Every structure is written in C-alpha cells, then in structure tokens.
C-alpha cells in the first residue's frame, strides 16, 4: 500500500495554519443583511411560563422579530427520539433555558432587546442532583438490567465490600461553539450551514419544525472546530432556530453561541453515581459484582439511553465478570440535557470497575496491577452480555509489552525509594487497560454511504456521510480513495458534508465513521476502478483484472514503466460512455443485540490499549504533576498514523482533564457556576505528561475493518484512568496502605483532603503500634 497506512498531514492542515479553513460562523460576513439571534433566558431551573410579552423588545430599534411558539409552522419540538424538547417551552426545565429568541440587525441589539422581553414565571421545585432524583423516583429510563450468573456468590466470597462512587460530568469545550446559518434557497426551500456531527438529523428536525418534506431542506457542514459528541444531537436546536428565523423573516439568520451561553445551554458528559458491592476470592479473582449506575440525564432524554447501555456494556472493561447483576437508571433532573461525549458512557462504567479492583487490591495488600492482570479476559471468554471477546489474548500481550517498555517494575521500586525519602511529596504509578466496543449499539446506525465523482481530467471529488471535526476522517477517506484509485492524495478532494449528496446518513460518532464511510468510499472507488480497468484493458489488449492503478497512472499487466495517465483513461471512458461516478454503501455485518434478553453481539470488534502513568503529589496543596505516561494502543494497522497518534494523545489528555481538573459545579439554584474558560479548566500545557510515549501494537490488522485499521477516536480517552489510579497510588503512600477513595474528578482539593485522611490513618496506626510496645 502506498497511501493507506502512511503518515500524512491532516487534509486541511494548510487551511488551518493559514486561517483559510472556514467554519460555519466564518461565513456570516458573506450574508449581507444577516440577522443575529439572542435568547431570552429563564431565571429558574424549573418553572411555568405564565406570560410572555415580546412587545417591549419589538419596540426597540433594529429589532426584527422575536421568535416564539406561535411562529412554528410544523412541530415545535427538536427532541430526536421522544420529541421531548420543545423549542419554546411552556415549562422551564433547566436554569437559563431559552423561552424565546430575539432576532436583530446586530448582536448587541438582540442581546439588549432580549432583556426587554417581559416573561412571568411560576417557580416549581427543581431536582438538581442524582440523589434528589433517586429520592423522587425521577427517571427518564430505568431500571434496565444486564445480568450474568448468580451474584449471591458475593455473599459467600471471602472478601466482600460495597461502596459508592460519584463521577463528575465534563464540558465538551469544543473550541468552536454552536453555530448555524440558515437562509431561503432560490426555490423556496431552506438551506443551512450547521456545525453538526449529524447533518441528516439537522435536516430531519428542521423539516419537522417547518412542516416541510426533507427534500426541501439542505444542510451542509464544512467542518467543525471540535465536537467530541457535543454536536451529535445538540446542534439540532440551534439549526432549527436559525431555520425558523429565516423562514419567518425571509432573511438569513445566524445563531452562534458565545462560550458562556454554550456552556450554560448545552449538554455535557453525564455525571454518574455508581453503587456497588463485590466479592473476591483471596487470590484476587473477582467472583461477582452488583452495580447500579445512575446517570444524570438532565431535562430531556437525548442520547442518555444508549449512553447508559454503553456504560453497562463497559463495566467489565478487560475483566471477566463471572457473575454480574447490573442495573441502570437515567435520572431526570432540571439541568442541561446531558449528551454524547467521547466514550459515550464507557468511561463511567470502566472507572467504576477500576475503582472496585483497586479497592480489592488494597484490601488484599496486593499491587493493583496484579489484581487487574489476574482478572483479564482470556481467549474464548465471553462478555457479561454473551459476546465472544475477540482477540482477548491481546489484552495480556499489550499489558506485558507496555510493562516492559515503560520499565514498570523498576520504576515501582524507584518510586518506593523516592517516597521513603520524601515526607511531603509522594509519587504514584498505575497501569490500566482498555477494551472498547466498536459499533453503534443502535444497530441500524451502522451503515455508511458515499458518492464519488471522477472528472474527465482525472480529478476526483469524494462525498460521504461523515463529518470532519478534527478527528482526521477526511484525511483517512482521502487516503482510502487515493489508495484504491492509485492516485496521489492531491488528485482527491473531499467535499464538505451535504445532505444532498448522501442521504439518510448516520451521525459521525461511535468511533465508527472511518469504518463505515471509508468502506462505502472504498465500495464506490472499487466500482469506478473496475469500469476504468475495462476501458484501459481494451486499450492495452489485456485482461481487466490485471490492470494496475499506481501513482496517477494505469498499467497493463507486467508493465512497469509505460502506462497511461489516469486522466487519459478517464477521458477515454467518458468518450466510450462509461459513467464516471458511483455510489458506495456499507453496512456492518454480524452485529445484533436483544435488549430484552441482554444477549447478543452489539460490537463488531474491540479496540484495546493500556497506559502507564506516574504522578507526583504535594501534601501541602493537593496539587499533582503528571510526570510520565506510556501508552500502547491497538489501532489495528493504523490507517493514518499521524491522525491516529493525534487521536491517542488528544483523547488521553481529554480523559485526564475529565478525571482531574475539569469540574462542573452548579449553585443551589441550579445555575452552572463554572460557565466559562476562567472557571472551567481544561488541560493546558501544564497537564501534558512531562515524558509522553505513544506506540501502536504491531501486526494487529483487523480483518473486518478498512485496510485493517481499527477505530481510534474514543478508546484512548479511557487510557487516562491510569492518571486517576496513579494519583490514588501516590495518596496511598502518605498513609498506611489501606483503601483510598475520592470522588471524580480528583481536583487538588479532593486530593488534599484524601492525603490528610491517609496521613491521619498512618498516625493512628503508628499510635496503635506505639501503644502495643508499651
């Protein structure tokens, strides 16, 4: 292979560094007379809207209109599944929920006028935490169950314990906030630019709101400035508002959230509460677990149900659960509607089992890595939902390779020496594994489409159903097309994602977009190649099967140097009336899952990996530094090594942020207290491991995936669990070596008090020992 598997720069790198790569809101200046939108925000987390009077705002100069429920020609709801997200709510369901939107000639005017809209409310009591929701039995979903074996084994196990872990959410903080521009097209339909991972769903929702058939709605996404799941469904609302505004005013409308509004209004990674009990044999083998996961779904259902299921599917991580009783609930609270976020519930499930294993290790006074290893899946094992663990042997292979390359054992000893000589600073190290299931758990989403166009000069346009959000999908697709057609990358242009090129697409999500759309593009390119091969074979006088496409030229069998330029073959094909465009299609085979029985094969394959992290903590402040991280990731045979490495490094740091410094806090009224970059801290330079080694498992081709490359978007995020566990290891060094618990994220404050608890346990132990001596 020439191009697939080669390290190439991001397809838009030049546009990125010159500033010429365009994002949705960059286009606003191209629409003369565009209107700007600002919401009227409700000052309650839960309330009835008893009166709404827009007249004072409309009286302001340069205000064009105020959008309210009366303006909706179709159905005023943008909830993707349950239709539970009214565009203009009569009952406010989270703090600052918009009740109307002002459109004006300038953003400043719209913002000021929004304050003039008179709204009266009747406040209602809000539910603002998982605990409150449990007490009030306020659930969107649940209980759902996933069971295996007989968990009464827990009660007969020699080591039994139970506990609770609160896991915080996470703000996506895509650098590009929500944005949409809508205008009327020349035939009276509506056209949109939308920053969305799911243009087809934006199309669906806009059509629903405007009461139009979908062919009247065209959505384009140029690229996104990051999304991470946050724009999988939550872009719909902003696009729908822009479309409604354009429909009503007959003028272009821009909806773009400033950062603070984006944080206040959009959903986040689900906070979770895990309650568990576990039984272990004295050799550290897990006998059984009972785990109940409560996720904070916020006010509407959104994607919370599949997020919960993915959490339940990933509670095993890489470990055999001989007996498991898993229960899940999605809590309904008066908060933003939590949504997809890289990992999609998987991380919360995996953090839970790692917590349980670490506790078992410390109770048994065995290193945590020993307990982890002892519980690994082996070849032939099946998961707790009955799926064979394909390539289970890789777990131990990766583990052993990484332990060796990271010098894990000798560093453990070095750390012990460091800790013995440092009273106020302690280091910790941890190795944690990852197994992540690849496929949408909603089986029907697992399809991809493409439309490939070849022009007579041999240049190629590729359209496919996936969107580019920085993950390098377009780069990979370009490699697939160029590889298949034997062209240099420059000959292939990846077009912006449009609903009028490929219909009924799936969201670009679940780490699957290269698998699905890449295979569809491959399908289309292979058809075209075959047609062109026949044309060339006719000219060469050889069989079509032996025609070779390489470096922009087409060769007869056995021919090394002569050959026709690709463009000449294309031109000849045109003249022979051979079609130079093709649609491609792919659906993932062999997957199915029965939610009634909790049995099936929801995932096409698993992506594996492991990470070792070492930290140093400071007793005086609770602060910590990430000294070194080593990662070994199974990305199959990486399709695009630069892109794939970027996904691993970026995913890891994003996960580290989630588990350490990224803390979402709400005030007692339900208002988000961390609604900006100055109060919500994502990782910066100071969080990058001082030493950072990333490598890929070799000779790991995945036969079912495109060119043998595995999905790599989400799995690396969970490698960051090694950071949380390393912090725990360091905290433990301040104490007598017992169980160490703290909620997630492990903020310096939580670490500070965990160290205090550990240190006071050590003093108590020392005092007891002293007393015995006397």
């Amino acid at each position, binding site marked *: 292979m020439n191009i697939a598997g080669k390290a190439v720069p991001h397809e838009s790198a030049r546009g990125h560094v010159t500033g010429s790569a365009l994002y949705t809101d960059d286009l606003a200046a191209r629409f003369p007379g565009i209107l700007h939108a600002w919401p009227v925000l409700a000052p309650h987390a839960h309330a009835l809207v008893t009166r709404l009077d827009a007249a004072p705002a409309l009286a302001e100069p340069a205000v064009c209109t105020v959008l309210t429920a009366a303006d909706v020609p179709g159905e005023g709801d943008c909830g993707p599944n349950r239709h539970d997200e009214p565009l203009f709510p009569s009952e406010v369901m989270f703090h600052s929920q918009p009740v109307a939107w002002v459109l004006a000639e300038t953003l400043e005017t719209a913002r000021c006028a929004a304050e003039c809209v008179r709204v009266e409310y009747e406040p209602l009591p809000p539910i603002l935490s998982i605990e409150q929701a449990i007490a009030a039995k306020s659930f969107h979903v649940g209980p759902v169950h996933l069971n295996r074996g007989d968990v009464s084994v827990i009660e007969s196990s020699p080591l039994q314990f139970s506990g609770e872990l609160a896991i915080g959410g996470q703000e996506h903080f895509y650098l*590009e906030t929500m944005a949409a521009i809508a205008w009327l097209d020349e035939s009276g339909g509506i056209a949109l630019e939308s920053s969305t991972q799911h243009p087809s769903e934006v199309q669906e929702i806009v059509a629903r709101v405007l009461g139009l058939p979908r062919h009247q709605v065209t959505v384009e996404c140029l690229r996104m400035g990051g999304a991470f799941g946050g724009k999988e469904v939550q872009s719909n609302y902003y696009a729908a508002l822009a479309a409604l505004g354009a429909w009503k005013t007959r003028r272009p409308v821009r909806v773009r959230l400033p950062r603070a509004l984006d944080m206040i209004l959009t959903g986040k990674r689900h906070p979770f509460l895990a309650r568990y009990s576990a039984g272990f044999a004295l050799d550290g083998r897990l006998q059984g677990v009972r785990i109940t996961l409560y996720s904070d779904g916020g006010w509407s259902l959104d994607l919370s149900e599949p997020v919960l299921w993915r959490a339940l599917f990933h509670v095993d991580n890489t470990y055999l659960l001989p007996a498991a009783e898993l229960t899940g609930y999605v809590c309904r609270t008066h908060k933003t509607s939590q949504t997809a976020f890289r990992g999609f519930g998987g991380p919360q499930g995996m953090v839970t089992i790692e917590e349980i294993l670490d506790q078992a290790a410390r109770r048994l006074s065995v290193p945590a890595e020993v307990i982890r290893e002892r519980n690994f899946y082996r070849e032939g094992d099946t998961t707790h939902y009955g799926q064979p663990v394909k390539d289970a042997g890789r777990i131990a292979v990766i583990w052993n390779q990484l332990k060796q390359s990271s010098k894990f054992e000798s560093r453990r000893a070095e750390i012990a020496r460091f800790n013995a000589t440092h009273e106020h600073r302690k280091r910790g190290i941890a190795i944690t594994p990852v197994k992540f299931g690849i496929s949408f758990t909603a089986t029907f989403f697992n399809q991809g489409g493409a439309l490939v166009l070849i022009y007579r000069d041999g240049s190629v346009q590729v359209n496919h159903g996936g969107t580019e959000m*920085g993950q390098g999908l377009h780069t990979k697709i370009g490699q697939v097309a160029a590889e298949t057609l034997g062209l240099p990358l420059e000959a292939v242009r990846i077009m912006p994602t449009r609903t009028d090129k490929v219909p009924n697409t799936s969201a670009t999500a679940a780490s699957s977009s290269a698998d699905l759309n890449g295979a569809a593009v491959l399908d289309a390119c292979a058809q075209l190649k075959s047609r062109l091969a026949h044309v060339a074979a006719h000219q060469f006088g050889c069989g079509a099967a032996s025609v070779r496409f390489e470096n922009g030229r087409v060769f007869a069998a056995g021919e090394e140097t002569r050959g026709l330029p690709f463009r000449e073959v294309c031109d000849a094909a045109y003249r022979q009336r051979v079609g130079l465009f093709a649609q491609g299609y792919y659906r993932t085979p062999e997957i199915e899952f029965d939610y009634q029985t909790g049995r099936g094969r929801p995932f096409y394959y698993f992506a594996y990996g492991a990470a070792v992290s070492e930290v140093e903590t400071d007793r005086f402040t609770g602060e910590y530094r990430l000294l070194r991280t080593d990662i070994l990731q199974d990305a199959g045979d990486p399709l695009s090594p630069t892109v794939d490495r970027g996904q691993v490094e970026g995913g890891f740091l994003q996960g580290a942020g989630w588990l350490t410094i990224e803390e979402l806090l709400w005030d007692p009224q339900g208002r988000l207290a961390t609604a900006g970059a100055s109060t919500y801290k994502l990782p910066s330079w100071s969080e990058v491991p001082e030493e950072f080694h990333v490598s890929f498992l070799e000779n790991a081709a995945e036969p079912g995936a495109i060119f043998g490359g595995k999905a790599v978007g989400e799995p690396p995020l969970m490698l960051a669990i090694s950071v949380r566990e390393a912090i725990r290891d360091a905290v433990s060094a301040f104490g007598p070596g017992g169980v160490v618990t703290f909620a997630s994220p492990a903020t310096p404050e939580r670490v500070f008090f965990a160290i205090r608890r550990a240190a006071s346990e050590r003093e108590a132990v020392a005092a007891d020992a002293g007393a015995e001596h006397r």
Partner: protein
Amino acid sequence: MTSPGASLQFLLNGNLVSVERTSLQATLLDFLRERALTGAKEGCAEGECGACTVVLVGPDGDCSSAYRAVNSCLMFLPAAAGHEIYTVESLAAGGRLAPAQAAMAAAGGSQCGYCTPGFVMSLFAEQYRRGRSGGCDPHALASNLCRCTGYRPIRDAALSLGPAPEGAFKDRLSRPAPLLEPVSYANGEARFSRPASIRDCVAILSADPGARLLAGGTDLAVESNLRGRRWSHLVSLEGIAELREFAETAGCVRIGSALSLNEIAERWRDAPEAFREWLPLFASPALRNRATLGGNFATASPIGDGAPLFAALDANLQVAGPGGRRSVPLAAFFTSYRRTALEPGQLITGIEIPKPLPQHARFYKVAKRRMDDISTVAAGLALDWNSAGRIVRARFVFGGVAPVPLRVQAAEEAVIGERWNESAVSRVQSILARTLKPISDHRGSSEYRLALAQSLIEKFWWERREVAA
C-alpha cells in the same frame, strides 16, 4: 485638548485602515471578522483560549521593536488606534507558509484547526523574539488552549523552529514601534481618549466623572464581553510615557503602572526569585503582554495575583489626581470588596518597592490548573532575620481568603523576635484559623482555602528550614 475626531486609524497587515464609527466596546476581533479576516476565532471572549491571537508591534528598547502576541478579543477597537497589527492572514504572503505555519502543519499540530491560527501567531511572535536561540520555547504558547491534540505535536513544532527567517517581518523589528499618539475620538455619546500626559489624564477624569480608565483592558474587556458592562467614555493610559518608565535606584525599584507585565520582567533584570516564580503563574503570555500592574491593583480583585507578592515586598502605590500626588501602601489600598483608596479623578502612576528587598520571599499560588488559572489561594510571604537568626520583619499576605487581598499583621507580629521554626509556624497557623474567613465557591471550599493558607506557611518554612535553623 482638541475636539474629538470621528475616525481612528491603525496599520493592519501593512495597510492603513480607518474606522469611522465604532462603539467603544467593539473588539478588534469583531472588527477583523466583519472584514472577513476570519482566521482569528472567538473561543471564549475572555482571553483564556487564545484562538483570537494576533500580534502587535511593540517597543523593545528605544529603537527596535518586538512582535507581541495579544488576545484580540480583549482589545477594544478604539484602543487599536495608532497600533501596527498583524493577523494570521498576513503570514503566508505569496502563498509560501511562514516557518511557524509549516512547522505546525508538518508536526500534526492541528486537528480541528480552530485554535491553530492563534497558536501560529503566538509561535510567530516567539520565533522573532530578540535574543532567542535554539528551538522556540513551548511556554510562549501557554496562552493557547487546544482541545484536540494533547499539545505534544505543537510542542514538537515549537522545538523544531530555528532562527527567524530574513525578510520583511525581521527587518521590521529593527525600527521603532509606532509611537502611540494622543487620541480623542467620539461617536455620538461614546468617547475614547488617549491622553499624552498624567496632567491631561487627570483633566479628562475631572471633567467627566463617567470616564473609565483603561490600562491593558484584560479585565475591563471581560466585563464588557461577558457581563455586558458598557461605558460612555474610556480613557486609555497607553500613551502616557511617564507611566511606562522603569527605574531602579539604591533605595527603591519604581515600576510604571502602565508597563505590561512582560515588559516589567524584561526590564527588572535582577528581580527577586519570588517575582520570577510569580510571573509565569500570572495569567498567560498574551495576557502579560497587555496586563499592567496598575490595572491589576485598580481592579482590586481579592484573587488578583499582584497584591500578595507586591504587598509582601512592602510596595507603595503612587497616585496622582486633581489634588496632586500621594503615596499609599499597597496593603492598605484595598478598602473593601473591589473598592480601593483611589478617589475620583485619581490614577495609579507607579509602584515603588523599597530596598533592601526581603532576605527571603516566596510566592505561592494554588489553583485547579497549575498554569493560567485563577487562584484558589495565593500567598506572598517574606521574612528578614537579624544576625542572631531572629525574625525582624515578616509579611504574610494572602489572596482568596477574604473580600480583599489580606495582609495578616497579627500573624506577622507574632513571629517578630522569634526563630523561624515549627512552633512559629503553628503559631501563625492558629492566628490564620482565627482571622481568615474565606468563602466557598467554585474555586474551592472555605475549609480548603483556610487549610491551604495554613499549609502554605508550613511549606514556606519547610522549603527554607535550613536557613531558618
């Protein structure tokens, strides 16, 4: 002063542009994007993410200049008057990527690309920094957030860059930065003034009680962008030469109130260790290119990082106003939450630090994120001993524990004449427990803040216990 003009000019990517009508709070970023220079992005509108970074040509000594990366979201458009500004669009003139651009692209330094133009501009400015050798310092990019890459490839890009290439961008730096002429601009009721002298400034303030002083704007623009604060008249201090002086004599160090923090660092060559550890913890490089000490004190945030350090150094503020000039001890400058001893018509002109500086001074800052975060608790701690090892001067000043930056004099007095040992530490800690009443908020609980203040005293002792013995 002359009657207000109706337009403002500045140099943008080498071309003179004229702004006829602008509101005071429009930002340079807004202006750029309306003119389809959309390389600079708005990621946060509060100077935290750096996606809007552009460079200004600023003075570097008397006759040469430097590229200063700044957040265009925090620069009110009128304040751009007279400046020379370059955006990412100017770098690849003629279609050839600048080295900073080529390095970022080659290293895989962009994924979604939204933050990339900002990184490129910070890297560009760093590559042209005078006296730099070897690869570029990745810390120069600490103003820029990336949510995709994990920074490793960006670090590699920075480290791979050699000397700045010959050419127009390099030649430009051998000439002085633009002289910032006085400005008097009006658009309807809105006014923007940039006086040339303290006297003119005081006169403007006296004539218009609604006038608001503008230094680096790194706080004021956040008030405008995020909280919608509006003013009828902004008075920029950028054109007053006297406020930009730095002088060190045998008796004191005098820092002009309108020098940027980075300019202070460049000029204060033998600054104490505490200042050196304070500087990188104070905001980020791009903010330090605009933020001033005068602004940091005048804005009077209880979690501003300037006060704990400079109060521990016994700094005095020099203040000018209609009634003449006076000096105020920094520790007494903060009267209540966000209130200061400044009276109407007054401005801070300088900060004076008496010599000798303390024998031992440290600055500590604890935050959720180690760099570019706002303090949960900050501490400026200083001690002097006599030849017998007894403490003769102590300064314990904290941010984040009270509505104002707080000097805890009772704790200071309790250690005078003592040795600096564990019992002195615990005496200070118990006084802190009695005197500090910190609040709980999203940066930390009251309990944590108090514990931190106490713990930092212990850390201060621990890290210096050999000397104290």
